């Protein structure tokens, strides 16, 4: 690995802690971010010569803070602080000081940063953009690309979010226990949304958007390290790992969707699966279930099945039943209907779908599942109607293409039936 790659990795990993601490000093996102950028520039100049400091985050906090104070003083035409090169030579002294400043704050600094980016006053789209910009340090250009919007539009979204945070009365003090657990849920939700943005990408865009999934996993691990005994955070991390493990098998060479049953399971990332299974194992020991754990448990059952026919659909049905109680939603019931159809046949699955028709009348997957179940029952005409509706509602061209392949099969089948009939 080259020098600059090492430094990049060190800067990325130190970022949440450093920006969090700088935010505590300056109580302003822009100032904190600018101070961090300045510190990074100095690191790029200083580290290759002097070697990386023992504690990169502490170094960046010190240098960033001094640079920002220096900036203020210079603008007041006062005496400048000593050069950071001089400070960084005092390695031990620097470290002790920085540790005294930050050791006890480490956890709170990162939390505050996450809490601010996932502030309830911000709409979800702004939370995600702000978290990716401030916590992850992705460039505006990278974020814009991942969300398939122009750089200018993304810049504006982030600026708005910052203005909103600045005008909202954001407490910089450490939140109390109750608020902390509420806000923790908000942070987890943002991470989940970031992941979904990447996961729901179509074949053509999955390469561009995959970094969102990877970033979400990194943030989930970060959160888990801060809350090592929270089973829901274990569940969230496990869920993301288990889903992302299938990334390499979800699209074919033409960028078309490959359904779970048809995926080449040898392409699943076994290391991610192992980590996900270990985490869900740990979480279950706490006997405090929650939606992320249940979803992770479902993903784990898929991951554990060497072949599609080995899947424990009865257990998946039960887990979706549990999820329906925790988080009642027609989409959850739709997923349960798929499991039910595997256990008790397409007719039973279809019956479960009927009550959802009204609420999911604009939902692509509802008609996709309905069409597939009708097709299994040989009710081809009704299946065709459902598939037509699904195509009209498709979000991506890959979704539409996938349904079209079903339709083609229907047409081929009915053509075959037609020739058989005419032969008689």
């Amino acid at each position, binding site marked *: *690995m080259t020098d600059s790659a*090492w430094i990049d*990795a060190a800067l990325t*990993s130190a970022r949440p802690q450093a920006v969090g601490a700088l935010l505590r000093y300056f109580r302003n996102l822009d100032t904190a971010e600018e101070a961090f950028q300045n510190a990074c520039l100095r690191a790029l100049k200083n580290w290759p010569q002097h070697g990386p400091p023992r504690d990169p985050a502490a170094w960046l906090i010190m240098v960033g803070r001094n640079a920002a104070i220096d900036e203020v003083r210079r603008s007041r035409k006062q005496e400048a602080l000593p050069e950071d090169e001089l400070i960084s030579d005092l390695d031990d002294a620097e470290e002790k000081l920085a540790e005294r400043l930050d050791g006890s704050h480490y956890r709170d600094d990162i939390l505050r940063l996450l809490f601010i980016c996932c502030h309830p006053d911000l709409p979800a789209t702004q939370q995600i953009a702000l978290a990716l910009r401030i916590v992850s340090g992705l460039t505006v250009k990278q974020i814009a690309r991942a969300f398939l919007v122009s750089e200018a539009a993304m810049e504006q979204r982030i600026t708005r979010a910052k203005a909103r945070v600045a005008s909202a009365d954001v407490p910089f003090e450490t939140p109390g226990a109750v608020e902390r657990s509420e806000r923790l849920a908000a942070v987890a939700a943002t991470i989940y949304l970031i992941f979904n943005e990447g996961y729901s990408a179509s074949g053509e865009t999955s390469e561009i958007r995959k970094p969102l999934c990877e970033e979400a996993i990194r943030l989930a691990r970060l959160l888990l390290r801060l809350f*090592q*005994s929270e089973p829901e955070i274990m569940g969230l991390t496990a869920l993301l790992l288990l889903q992302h493990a299938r990334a390499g098998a979800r699209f074919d060479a033409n960028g078309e969707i490959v359904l779970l049953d048809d995926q080449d399971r040898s392409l699943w990332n076994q290391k991610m699966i192992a*980590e996900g299974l270990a985490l869900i194992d*740990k979480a279950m020991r706490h006997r405090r279930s929650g939606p992320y754990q249940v979803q992770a448990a479902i993903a784990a059952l898929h991951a554990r099945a060497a072949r599609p026919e080995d899947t424990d659909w009865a257990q998946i049905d039960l887990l979706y039943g549990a999820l329906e109680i925790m988080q009642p939603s027609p989409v959850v019931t739709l997923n349960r209907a798929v499991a039910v159809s595997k256990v008790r046949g397409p007719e039973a699955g279809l019956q479960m779908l009927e009550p959802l028709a009204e609420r999911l009348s604009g939902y692509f997957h509802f008609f996709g599942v309905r069409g597939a179940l009708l097709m299994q029952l040989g009710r081809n005409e009704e299946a065709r109607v459902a598939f037509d509706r699904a195509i009209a509602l498709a979000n991506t061209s890959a979704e539409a293409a996938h349904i079209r392949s079903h339709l083609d099969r229907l047409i081929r089948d009915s053509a075959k039936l037609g020739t058989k009939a005419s032969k008689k």
Partner: protein
Amino acid sequence: MLYAILCYHDEDVVGSWTREQDAAVMSKLAVVQDKLKKAGRLGPVARLLPTTAATTLRKDDPPVVLDGPYAETKEQLLGFYLVDCENLDDAIGVAHDLGAANPGGTYEIRPVGLFQPGGTAK
């Protein structure tokens, strides 16, 4: 004598490697390992999953199960090698070669007192 070479590094940093960077490090390490393997000196090698996947059992009475790694430190135990070495100098030499292939972090070199190869786990 058998030596354990325990690999410590900041797992935040290692976790920030891109897949390509990770693969590059692993393939460089494979070259060093191959040399040891051919000389018949390489024992088991393990890379551990992140400490977020760790559980700690404190052997109190009754034992207490805790989430997370045993100690909260800046650098975490990320993996280990067992290598047959003439003496400490030799073991330090091996650690040097491994470190050249994968810079950053720390190796702790510990002579092995008891080694049971087992041989059934996969």
